[in-house]
């Protein structure tokens, strides 16, 4: 699992809560208010105050360098900004510069540092960092970079670096994709416990690459709609718990999430594939659907989130149990309910790591709430998602209330080993 480290080891550069060695288990440390100085008192551990808790949350960092990129195995943070870009640069050298700049900047941002001067010393200097995250702390920020299939077309001579069978997702039932929310040569997923920190990161990365990339689409997500290890299961905007049976075990990560040699690309070993689907929910009609129908559509109860064959959220659903009485022997969890269609038991063991977020964006063009799920999943092969979605798109009863309006698939390279390396370095050797 990803190791959580306090930001304190690099505080000299971070100016955040100077002196704080916060993070769980920092007993004996009393943290001052913002900007204050920690006072060690080994004799009498003080109770954790609300201010301490917030400070701890703000100073949370995840290591940037490592075997895998952050933002995959990382327990989902509270907020998301995901942005896809098209490369407008015409030469491989410009693309190389973008990837090298981004990699260096990402290591700074995830440590809670600005990407350059917020307030340059010279009067005519242009601020390098836009400044809105100053003094906010790293907030558990992770930045995850992915390459779209289109990056490997002929423009930059990267054809031979394309992972095996990596292509745009095939057309599937249940989608009406808007080109404005589909595709992209590159994508960045920013997740943090504060939305402004996530936004600042993507904004500054986009800004430093403005002459070479163009933002294609972006979605702001909230209310993490998936659970990581030891996290309570959150709810999607339909009011149901989402991610109850999500991948958590190390064995599942190796089998189902991390790419091995099969992609035929060394840079993908330890990487993953990100599938992004912007799913518009027809919330108003859903809200008027009777509870019995809502529960049978999902196959779970609404408040507890228990499978209809059980009483507790984490009870294993029994897809063979049939309703008492009658002659039809109808299963209690309908075969076309969402959990029955998606369950690994019914899909040859296929699992995906869901890491989605709820989104809302005001009203749509016909006056309905423009809201839904920014579905994000990581898997060893996009085929895992495609197989599941083919089934869901064909028969999921939920389809009456959702539309897939945006889509993207990205090859997420393995993590960077250390400073001095950058994503895609192999492409430019």
């Amino acid at each position, binding site marked *: 699992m990803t190791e959580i480290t306090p930001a304190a080891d*690099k505080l*000299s*550069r971070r100016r955040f809560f100077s002196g704080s060695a916060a993070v769980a288990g920092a007993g004996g440390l009393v943290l001052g208010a913002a900007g204050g100085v920690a006072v060690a008192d080994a004799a009498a551990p003080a109770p954790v105050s609300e201010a301490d808790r917030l400070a701890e949350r703000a100073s949370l960092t995840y290591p940037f360098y490592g075997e895998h990129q952050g933002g995959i195995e990382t327990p989902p943070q509270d907020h998301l900004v995901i942005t896809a870009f098209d490369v*407008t*640069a*015409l*030469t491989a*050298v*410009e693309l*190389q*510069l973008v990837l*090298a*700049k981004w*990699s*260096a*900047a990402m*290591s*700074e941002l995830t440590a809670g*540092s600005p990407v*350059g*001067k917020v307030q*340059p010393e*010279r*009067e*005519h*200097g*242009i601020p*390098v960092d836009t400044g809105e995250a100053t003094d906010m702390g790293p907030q558990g920020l992770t930045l995850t970079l992915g390459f779209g299939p289109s990056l490997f077309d002929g423009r930059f001579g990267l054809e031979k670096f394309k992972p095996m069978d990596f292509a745009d997702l095939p057309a599937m039932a249940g989608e009406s994709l808007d080109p404005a929310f589909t595709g992209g040569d590159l994508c960045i997923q920013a997740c943090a416990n504060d939305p402004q920190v996530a936004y600042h990161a993507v904004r500054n990365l986009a*800004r430093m690459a*403005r*002459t*070479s990339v*163009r933002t294609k689409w972006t979605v702001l997500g909230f209310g993490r709609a998936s659970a990581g290890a030891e996290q309570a299961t959150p709810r999607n905007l339909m009011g149901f718990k989402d991610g109850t049976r999500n991948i958590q075990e190390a064995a599942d990560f190796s089998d189902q999430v991390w790419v091995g040699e099969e992609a035929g690309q060394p840079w993908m070993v330890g990487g993953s594939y990100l599938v992004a689907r912007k799913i518009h929910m027809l919330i108003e009609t859903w809200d008027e659907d009777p509870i019995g129908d809502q529960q049978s559509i999902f196959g779970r109860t609404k408040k507890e989130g228990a499978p209809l064959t059980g009483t507790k959220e984490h009870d294993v659903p029994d897809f063979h149990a049939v309703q008492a009485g009658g002659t039809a022997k109808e299963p209690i969890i309908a075969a076309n309910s969402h959990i029955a269609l998606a369950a690994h038991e019914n899909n040859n063991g296929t699992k995906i790591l869901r890491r989605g977020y709820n989104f809302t964006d005001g009203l749509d063009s016909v006056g309905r709430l423009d809201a839904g799920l920014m579905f994000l999943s990581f898997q060893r092969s996009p085929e895992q998602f495609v197989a599941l979605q083919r089934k869901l798109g064909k028969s999921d009863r939920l389809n009456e209330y959702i539309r897939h309006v945006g889509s993207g698939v990205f090859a997420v390279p393995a993590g960077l080993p*250390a*400073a*001095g*390396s*950058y994503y895609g*370095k192999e492409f430019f050797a």
Partner: protein
Amino acid sequence: MISFAPRSFRSAAPAVLAGMAVLTLSLSACGSAATTDNAANALKGGAATVSNGAAQIAVSVEKVDGEDACVPEFTSAPAGPVTFTIANKDASAVSEVELLSDKRILGERENVIPGLKSVSFTVTLTGGEYQLYCPGASKEYQPFTVTGAAASAAANGVSDLLKQGTDGYAKYVSGQVDSLVLAAAALQAAVDSGDVTASQKAYAEARPFFERIEPVAESFPDLDPALDLRVADVEPGTEWTGFHPLEKDLFEAKAITASSKALAAGIVKNVATLKTLTAELETNASYKPEELANGASGLLEEVQSSKITGEEEAYSKLDLVDFAANIEGSQQAFEYLKPALNEIDATLTKQISGQFETVNTALDGYKDANALGGFKAYTDELKKSDAAKLTALIQSLQAPLAKIAEKVATV
């Protein structure tokens, strides 16, 4: 290419844009000197040796005891050309290195990024104290000493080039204002004759002269509002004057009234005042390099905030005419700074030239010889289909262009 205004001032002007080659950004880094791990070698101290006609200073940007640091191989060099070759090993907080004399940038390289090959710049230095500036490093300023007398006058080359640039730009502005005086007189004559079609044409012909030098006009706080205020910016209770109420008469009402004639006369009067003021600026050599740079960037701000939105020429739909004029004025200011900027940061200079070329090529696609002002009318449909593309285009130019003011600043 964009058509250019009369250029009687040209004798003193540096090479202007026509025929500019397509320039692609290149990491001139590729294939240059190898990285030197200076921290490991320990500082040699003393003065650098001279080879290839220049003192060679390798600067390693790297983590030293966990802190991002800039480590020069030598802290001193003999007077004359000095080449700084910089490689970033693993210090992700540092992305540029500059050589300063007092606060002035003599030479610099951006994109000093971990993992990329080394980059270099060469400056000619006279004896004295300088600073190596590495923004983001734990120790940002380090002294650098040059010993001996000036080898030549080349050390003052950048200042001379900047002076030539501001002088040239002053003449350019005066030339534009001279043309504006004539165009305003023609506009007044057309309006006075009551011929709406001829007046529309004269309006379209006059606008670019103003739009090219708008930052200069804006520097006179009363004059710009008197000439160029849009209806949305008119304070309730104050009189709306200048080009845009006349535009409304000519393109919306399509009728010339006594008030239209008064507006045209007002434009002529205010343009005459502008001529007096800009002539003084030229005579007194008042332009500063950073003003040219900020003006060049400011014109792109204008393009984004009022032309691409279609607010500038709401009645005539001539926004693309103004757009092209803003770009041209911006490029002119840049071109006058270019010889000096090229000495300071050749890579950035090339990048900006390339972006101007891209914008100009895109603008060519909107030309229409039969349309007023030579460009397609910026209709709601065109705005809907093309505005986002145009915004991205201008932002890609403004991002590097905004950086030049501090590089050429004389303070």
